Every structure is written in structure tokens, then in C-alpha cells.
């Protein structure tokens, strides 16, 4: 049974996290999830918008929810937690009439409300299900030891996000296990990576993401798995900056969870996207299927 759902890729999907975008669409296709991209979607405003004004932020999000509604959808999915958070919070806040009116004042077309947003992760775990994921696996990722990092806003605040455990989420861990990887519990699953301070306050990101890498290293994992373009960028692209600032020599590949699923599904297009990762993942990928040999 296929699932048809409105799809909001988010700006970074068309730029810095294009490999997340391609692997997401690839994996969804492979699992009969029909992603219907919102026509002419616009930016949700991300963190900058809500730090300036909540009405403005919700207006930027609401335009997209209205477009999805017009296409006949009551649910939108997005791979990006920041977009997810903005879309969900806009919907949540606009349940209050005075706030909804203030937002609609800024919009060409008023938003009527009632469009839910789910992360792609949530759709895969809840709507598709782990059984179907397991069935689709062609090359189990046996031998690959990973830790899953969810980022700070995928599950928080719990009243709004309403998905998984807000301190110890397991959705990604379960997905990775379903595709055969060995999952080591990551104690800082929901600790912030430094978010968008990479540009204006680099030391914040090198400190916070540095701590994540340090803890991951202590676990002896081959890679970290993420679900957030900003987290991935901070941990991957800025890993060199972190090493310089912290005096470390990390060389830990940072995958999107969809990339590893694509790998397990043998989706060549998506696997191609791994070339876009800054920290070379070849050593980690080489472990796949090597577990038995090592023991032997």
C-alpha cells in the first residue's frame, strides 16, 4: 500500500544538504511513499524568523501549509527538523484565534488551520513501519557501528512535536537496527550542536559539536547518523574547524540516516550522494559485511 503525502524539502535540501534530499526521495520511492512536493514552496523562516517575531515566522510557515491544503493534503512531511519545528509551531500557535488573525493579516491567502507536519523519520517509522524497511533491505549494514544523533528540536518541546521520547528518542536507532547496523546508544542524542551560530559565533559550534564528537569517539563508533542538515553541516563540514579549535584529530563520518538506508537498499543514486560528505566515509563503509571476517 503506497502512501501519498505532501512534501516540503526545505531550502538547504536544494543547497548544502542536497545529498539528504536525494537520499530521502530515493528511500521514500523505494518504500512506496509518494512525496508530492508543495508547488512553489517558500522558506519557513527557520530560526532567524522566530528570533525576530513569532507572527512573521508563522506567516512564512503558514503560506506553505495553505499551499499543501489547497493540494488536498492534511499532512506535510519534511526531512529538516528546523522546517518541521517551524511548521508545527506555526500550526500549534495558530490554534489560538488572536494569533491566527495576526498571522493571516500578513498573508495573501489566509491559513485555515489543521495541516499537520511530520518528519520524514516519523513517516518512515510510523506510517511505513520497520517491517517494511527490513523487507526492502538488500545489503544489511552488518559490521557498521553507529550512534544516532537527533539534534535538539526534532522531539522538543514534546507538547508540540508529539513524536518519540523527548530525552531518549529511539526512532532512528530502530531504523538503523532494521537495516542491519550495530547501534550504540548515544547519550547526547538531543544535545544542541550549536545550530546556526557557525557563522556569527564559530566558537559556540566548535565547542558544542566538539563535545558531541568527543563522546561519539569514546563510544568507538564508525560514524554518527543524523537527521538534520544543520547538525550534519556543523559536525561534518566544520569538523576541521572543531579539530583546530579543540586540538583534536577527529575523522568521523557524519551520515544522514537516509543515506545509510539508501546504501542498505542498494540505491545507486543515493549512494552517489555520499561523495558530497566532507569527512571521507570510505573507511566506515568498508566495514559493512566485514564483521564476520574480523571475528574470524
Amino acid at each position, binding site marked *: 500500500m503506497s502512501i501519498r503525502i505532501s512534501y516540503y524539502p526545505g531550502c538547504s535540501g536544494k543547497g548544502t544538504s542536497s545529498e539528504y534530499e536525494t537520499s530521502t526521495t530515493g528511500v521514500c520511492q523505494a518504500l512506496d511513499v509518494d512525496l508530492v512536493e508543495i508547488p512553489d514552496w*517558500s522558506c519557513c523562516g527557520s530560526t532567524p524568523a522566530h*528570533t525576530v517575531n513569532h507572527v512573521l515566522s508563522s506567516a512564512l510557515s503558514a503560506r506553505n501549509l495553505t499551499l499543501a491544503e489547497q493540494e488536498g493534503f492534511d499532512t506535510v512531511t519534511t526531512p529538516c527538523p528546523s522546517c518541521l519545528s517551524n511548521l508545527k509551531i506555526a500550526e500549534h500557535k495558530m490554534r489560538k484565534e488572536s494569533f491566527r488573525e495576526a498571522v493571516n493579516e*500578513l498573508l495573501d491567502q489566509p491559513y485555515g488551520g489543521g495541516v499537520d507536519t511530520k518528519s520524514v523519520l516519523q513517516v518512515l517509522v510510523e506510517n511505513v513501519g520497520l517491517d517494511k524497511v527490513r523487507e526492502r533491505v538488500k545489503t544489511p549494514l552488518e559490521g557498521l557501528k553507529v550512534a544516532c544523533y537527533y539534534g535538539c528540536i526534532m522531539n522538543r518541546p514534546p507538547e508540540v512535536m508529539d513524536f518519540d521520547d523527548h530525552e531518549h528518542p529511539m526512532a532512528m536507532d530502530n531504523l538503523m537496527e532494521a537495516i542491519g547496523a550495530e547501534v550504540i546508544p548515544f547519550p547526547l542524542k538531543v544535545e*544542541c550542536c550549536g545550530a546556526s551560530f557557525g*557563522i*556569527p559565533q564559530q566558537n559556540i559550534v566548535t565547542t*558544542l559539536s566538539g563535545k558531541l564528537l568527543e563522546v561519539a569517539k569514546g563510544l568507538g563508533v564508525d560514524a554518527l547518523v543524523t537527521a538534520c542538515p544543520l547538525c550534519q553541516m556543523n559536525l561534518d563540514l566544520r569538523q*576541521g574547524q572543531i579539530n583546530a579549535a579543540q586540538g583534536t584529530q577527529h575523522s568521523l563520518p557524519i551520515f544522514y540516516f537516509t543515506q545509510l538506508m539508501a546504501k542498505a537498499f542498494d540505491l545507486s543514486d543515493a549512494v552517489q550522494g555520499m561523495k558530497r560528505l*566532507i569527512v571521507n566515509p570510505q573507511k566506515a563503509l568498508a566495514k559493512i559485511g566485514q564483521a564476520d571476517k574480523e571475528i574470524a
Partner: protein
Amino acid sequence: MNTYKITAADNTFTAEVEKRSGQDLNACYQCGNCTAGCPFSFAYDIQVSNIMRLVQIGQRDKVLQCHSIWLCASCQSCTTRCPNNIDVAGVMDHIRHMAREAGLATERKVKVFVDSFLDSVERHGRVYEMGLMVSYMAKTGRVFTDVELAPKVLPKGKLPLKPHSIKGKEQIAAIFKRFREVKSK
């Protein structure tokens, strides 16, 4: 450090933060859990629990001029773990709005980054990351920001060199325009 004259303090400040955020600041019993869990505590000039306290006793200037409100990433640790269910991150957000409206920005680079980001959205309907970087560097004069990353990123095709505008970009521009009109009323 000044002596805080509590009876002379600005009661309206406490009330305004409460009204904007919809939070009952009296409910904060100063356990410090927000500070304990805040990943950004190391970078703050005033810890988040102290900000909550200063708001309780009406210290408008001290709060609006602090650096911490610009460094909060809204990661929701404080909100999620507050034993009194106070949306602390929301309070921080609203204080930041008030500082911005008062023309205060003790972390100018952060503000410029935010402005550049929203400029980009207003202009194209979506964020044009390359344009955002150029705009930020121009406004801050920090032309070498992340320059060492360029050779890593550019060959990967991660940063399109041309903006991708949407068809309805006028609708986005209109949102910003109306927002400014409402605010100036």
C-alpha cells in the same frame, strides 16, 4: 554593579514579558535547571536562570542589554526540562524581540546574520545560502568568515552560485512588507 532598587523597578517590564510570552514568571522558583541544562551557558554573560530572576524583579536594562539573549539557539532544553512547565526558550525569544524593537543588539554579528538570512528570504522566497554569506560578510566586514571551508564545499556542488527564486516571491516580499507596516503602527 548597581544596587537594584526593587520598588522603583519597572513593573511594566515584568508584565510585558509575561504578556508577550504567555508565561507566569512567578512560577519560576529559581531552581536553576534551565542554566544547568543550557548548552550555551559557557558562552553566556548572564545565565538563563539569572535572566529569569532579573525579569522577575523588573531589571529591563540589564536584561535587554545582555549578550545571552542573542546567543540562545532555542534548543528547547530549558523549556522541556522546566519543573514548572515554563517555556523558558519562549521567554528568551520574546526578550530578544523586545531588545530588537528597542534598537538593542549586543551581539551585532548574530543580528546581522539573522537580518541577512531574512533579507535573502524576502528577496528570493527561499534562502540563497551563497548570497546570505556574501551579504553577511559585507555587512560585518568579516570577509574571511569560513573562507577555509570554500575549497571543501565548492567542489561538492553544495553551494549553488545562482539564486533560486520562487514564482511567488512577491507573496513573500508582501509578508515582510505587511509585517513592517503592522509593526510601525
